[in-house]
């Protein structure tokens, strides 16, 4: 089968690889009908996530048709159409029982490695490094799905792929980013990053009752999409973000700030950008946390900083003084996707259409070009959906 493989920094290749099979009783094999490239795939592409190996199959946002199930999967059968959540979760450990699926205690066979890097291990993730399981991803014609009786959600009606595909990651991730803000009437929510996750976070914050949402980015076409989703927009190359937010909130600051950027933030002050880039390049600092620093500084006293952008390792110059003295709360996490799939599918059935983030449909063979285009923000590239067949 064809699969998009990580071949080193800034290099992916579509290769012929063996088809996956059933390894465990609770596995299913899915024939992938649609798969997407995620902003967090760029962290792999750029070489900032440790423990990648040449030849690893990428992709954690995919859906398709079940073609084979193990004897432990009673609720799915060949022919079922499913969307697969990106965190692999068993449904039976304490974390899963509490709905913290991305912290599943049983799905990462390389938990020992993750423990050494992070203290404790999170769940395994499709196509996202060996530290997070060494699972082949879904940018392929077929994918093996462990714990298939727990994760995948069946799509029984004729909703097209593009409306339900994002249940696999970015829609729930944006939703959780907004939910962690504990939105109350009158709240102003600021969102760093107007990529697809930030766009969904903005849309979710409004649906959860925010008075106003402010999206911050530097690409006008992305801000425009966030604007269409209902956000007020700030281009940080044109305005001073802290000043502008103080202005909008008459000095209070946003009640909650969402970091939908993560470890490769860009920063308009060249010296600070250069400092972090140099440290990151030398591997002294694994992550460039400008968005997070600014979100902390901007947040109102006693407010919430909600982090859904992906971080891989360590950050520098963390404004702990601001964070501590002003009674801020930080909430974080890889999305517990399984928790949100059903309620968000219901919203889609009621008319919410998440396909507004898609700018490009391409074939799986074109993945190398798609990665390049997405990374360099060419052709107003916002979200690419790949067809493997």
């Amino acid at each position: 089968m064809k699969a998009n493989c990580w071949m080193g920094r800034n290099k992916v290749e579509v290769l012929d690889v063996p088809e996956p099979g059933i390894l465990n009783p609770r596995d299913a094999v899915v024939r992938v009908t649609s798969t997407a490239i995620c902003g967090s795939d760029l962290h792999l592409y750029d070489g900032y996530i440790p423990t990648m190996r040449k030849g690893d199959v990428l992709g954690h946002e995919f859906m398709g048709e079940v073609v084979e199930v193990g004897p432990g999967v009673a609720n799915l059968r060949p022919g079922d159409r499913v969307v697969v959540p990106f965190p692999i979760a068993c449904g039976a450990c304490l974390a899963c029982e509490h709905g913290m699926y991305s912290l599943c205690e049983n799905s990462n066979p390389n938990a020992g490695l993750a423990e050494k890097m992070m203290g404790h291990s999170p769940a395994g993730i499709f196509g996202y490094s060996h530290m997070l399981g060494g699972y082949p991803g879904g940018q392929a014609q077929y994918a093996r799905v462990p714990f298939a009786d727990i994760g995948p959600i069946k799509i029984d009606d004729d909703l097209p792929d593009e409306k339900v595909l994002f249940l696999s990651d970015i829609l729930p991730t944006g939703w959780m980013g907004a939910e962690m803000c504990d939105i109350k009437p009158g709240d102003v929510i600021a969102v760093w990053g107007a990529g697809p996750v930030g766009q969904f976070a903005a849309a979710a914050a409004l649906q959860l009752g925010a008075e106003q949402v402010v999206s911050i980015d530097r690409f006008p076409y992305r801000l425009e999409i966030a604007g269409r989703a209902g956000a007020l927009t700030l281009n940080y190359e044109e305005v001073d973000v802290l000043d502008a937010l103080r202005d909008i909130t008459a000095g209070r600051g946003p009640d909650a700030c969402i970091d939908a950027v993560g470890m490769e933030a860009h920063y308009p002050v060249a010296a600070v950008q250069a400092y972090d880039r140099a440290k990151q390049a030398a591997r002294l600092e694994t992550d460039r946390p400008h968005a997070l620093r600014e979100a902390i500084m901007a947040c109102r006293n006693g407010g919430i900083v909600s982090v859904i952008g992906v971080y891989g390792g360590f950050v520098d110059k963390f404004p702990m003084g601001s964070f501590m003295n002003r009674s801020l709360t930080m909430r974080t996490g890889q999305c517990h996707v399984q928790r949100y799939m059903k309620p968000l599918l219901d919203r889609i059935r009621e008319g919410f259409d998440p396909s507004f983030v898609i700018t490009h449909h391409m074939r799986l063979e074109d993945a190398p070009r798609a990665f390049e285009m997405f990374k360099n923000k060419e052709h107003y590239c916002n979200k690419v959906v790949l067809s493997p067949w």
Partner: protein
Amino acid sequence: MSTTINRQAHRLAEALERGLHVVRFTPSGGLHAAITVNRPRHEVYRFWRDLENLPRFMAHVESVVTVPGGGSHWRVRGPANRIIEWDAEITRDREDELISWRSLGGAATRHRGSVRFTDAPGGRGTEVRVEMEYRTPGGRAGLVVARLFGEHPEQQVRDDLRRFKQVMETGEVARSAGSPEGPRAWRQFFQHKAQPAEHARRPAQHASR
């Protein structure tokens, strides 16, 4: 098989291990490891007490055959894939609380150990604590057992416990293309590609229920 990134990861892991990970390994050759299993204590004890279940989660153990009177015969895959065998006996058995054992015979495989089961607080399941003792490297007692556990003995016992938890909670051992055998310390540094592999394929089992 290892790549630059894997070497980097290995070094980082080693460096962090020195900082974060205290190997509690006493001069007498004792080690311990613990894990919490989200199942009732009786069920966890019963599973372990049926020693023939142990190969399902102990990476090195090929088979355990129990004989009447509390004895057992162990077949274990050692360094260089050599099969090593020994007999063992249960020395203490308190239902739902404790199982202790010791090996019989040759000094090279001499060791003893125990596993304790207690309720985790607040309904969090069962705490499982394993202790093992073998003398090395001064005396020759427990030499084979020491080699089985390699350079990171506690990590290997902890990986066994991780697989035990997986089997108890999910009914299977977590496998990926990168780690097709499930959690094993050495594999974490010498991963297969995260790409489906012919050799990892098992006979397809179609749904029949």
